[in-house]
């Protein structure tokens, strides 16, 4: 839960420390991915290469430049008017398991 109103933040892309295998395990856990030991090493290397590339941007002097949230300055907004929704059959069409007009999902476990 973010608190209060804070100064605008940007993604912290400038990471000066290389990722470790433990970081990769944590990211995989958050993404619900199961990686083999070999994959963990592979992705650690690949992600570190990516970060190195992105880090080049850190060389640009951004002192006093306000953060940009989006490259487009368009005002996309719509009127509060209902539009037709999908029929229920179509919404459920691709679901692997359906019951009583609902998507059926396996037992939920926390974490």
């Amino acid at each position, binding site marked *: 839960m973010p608190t209060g109103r804070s100064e605008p933040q940007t993604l912290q892309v400038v990471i000066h420390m290389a990722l470790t295998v433990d970081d990769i395990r944590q990211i995989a856990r958050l993404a619900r991915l199961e990686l083999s030991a070999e994959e963990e090493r592979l992705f650690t290397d690949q992600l570190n290469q990516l970060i190195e590339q992105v880090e080049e941007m850190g060389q640009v002097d951004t002192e006093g430049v306000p953060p940009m*949230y989006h490259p487009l300055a368009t005002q996309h907004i719509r009127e509060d008017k209902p539009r037709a929704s999908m029929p229920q059959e179509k919404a459920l069409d691709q679901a692997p398991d359906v019951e009583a007009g*609902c998507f059926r999902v*396996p037992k939920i476990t926390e974490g």
Partner: protein
Amino acid sequence: MTNGWETVVGLEVHVELATETKVWCGCKNEFGAEPNTNVCPVCLALPGALPVLNERALELIIKAGLALNCQIERVASFHRKNYFYPDLPTGYQITQFDLPLCYDGYVEITKADGTSKRIRIERIHLENDAGKLLHAGDDVAAAHSSLVDFNRAGVPLIEIVTKPDIRSAEEAGLFLNKLRSILKYTGVSDVKMEEGSLRCDINISVRPEGAAEYGTRCELKNVNSVAHMMRAIEYEAARQIDIITAGGVVEQETRSWRNDRGVSVLLRTKEDAEDYRYFPEPDLPPVAVAEELVGKVRASLPELPDAVIERLMGDYGLSRYDASLIATEREYVTWFDEAVELAGAEQAKAVANWQLNELFRIMNERGFGPEQIPVTPNQLAGLLKLIQDGTITGKIAKDVFEKMVDSDLDAATIVKREGLTQVSDEDSLREIARRLVAENPGPVQQWIDGKETVAQWFMGQVMKETRGRANPQVALKLVIEALNEHTAER
């Protein structure tokens, strides 16, 4: 605030906005529809679908912010909050992070002892609701599988976050009721707790009275009624005080309130705290909030509960407590104002008494909501006129009022039909008084012996004989006359 301990509470209140459509797509925002019929590629998160902000949702959060005395951010910018749960088709909630649309507001509460207190609002931000999970089994833990209905996914929500300014279950209850009133007055939300349109998470800690530092807090999730919230706060404060007095340490935890058992249970500890990886929402460019829009919304604000309370106190001399009871619902205020308009300002206190005592009691007994007020202001005004000109007694008036609840008839018609007109005719009342004195030598002897309250007893008998229709002052006067005559004759 028991035994030298102070409870510190902050609330996160989620409120569904009263829009026609969802916040990022044109599907209907509607409660109780057939499952998965108000869904589309956007709210089901089908590949390639893009969200577009609902103009009305933006207006309503600004309205909430202004009504809650907040500053308004001049840009609506959104972040993704990432987590996996089956009710969230996108795998993230679109919400606001560093720049909530509203910040630095407050709500004023009036306590039972007449003092008022300001509860500060830290921020209000706009986000989307998730779908609804129906568990096959008693609860999440016992369920073998769950059913998902995405009709609610994408419904606009505002999250109102308070500062930790609340110090008791009572204050929390007053705050939530006041918040509810304000959101209903302004039409920001229907605030139907039974339909889940207002839900609340509670942050709570305890500390020795007078301590400067806050204690470690726990968060109680998903409390959905004022009564449950007050009970949950009392339970959780006692649980934490017990831990500390037993020499233990309160751990920062997220807990779930189980109202059926009256306990909170552990959901997760600080170590397993979620990592939501917030980042700016690439699918929604920020929207500038124009000065005209804020001005237009400000101009559309109705008279709010605090202004109503001040007006009823200032114009009619009502107590703060009575005024705040009338101010809880806009419908009650409209009813009061119309009745006073019809009956005259000098009758305002009488109107308030009838509304707060008789009307609210009857509505309470019958389970009527504020939109089901069973007596019209016109009916009450008619009744007050009959009391004022002495046609009926106050006691009879209560019966007439009850009868008006079940009919559209005006008071005069009911009084005429039922023969309830007050008897002020001295001759017929004198006759009854004399007869009663003659028939009751015992009480008369007590009167002679100096027991003056006997006169009241005789007056009661006269009222009984006339089925409450006798003018009480006249009856008392005649009873005393009759007693004196009788004594003199002896």
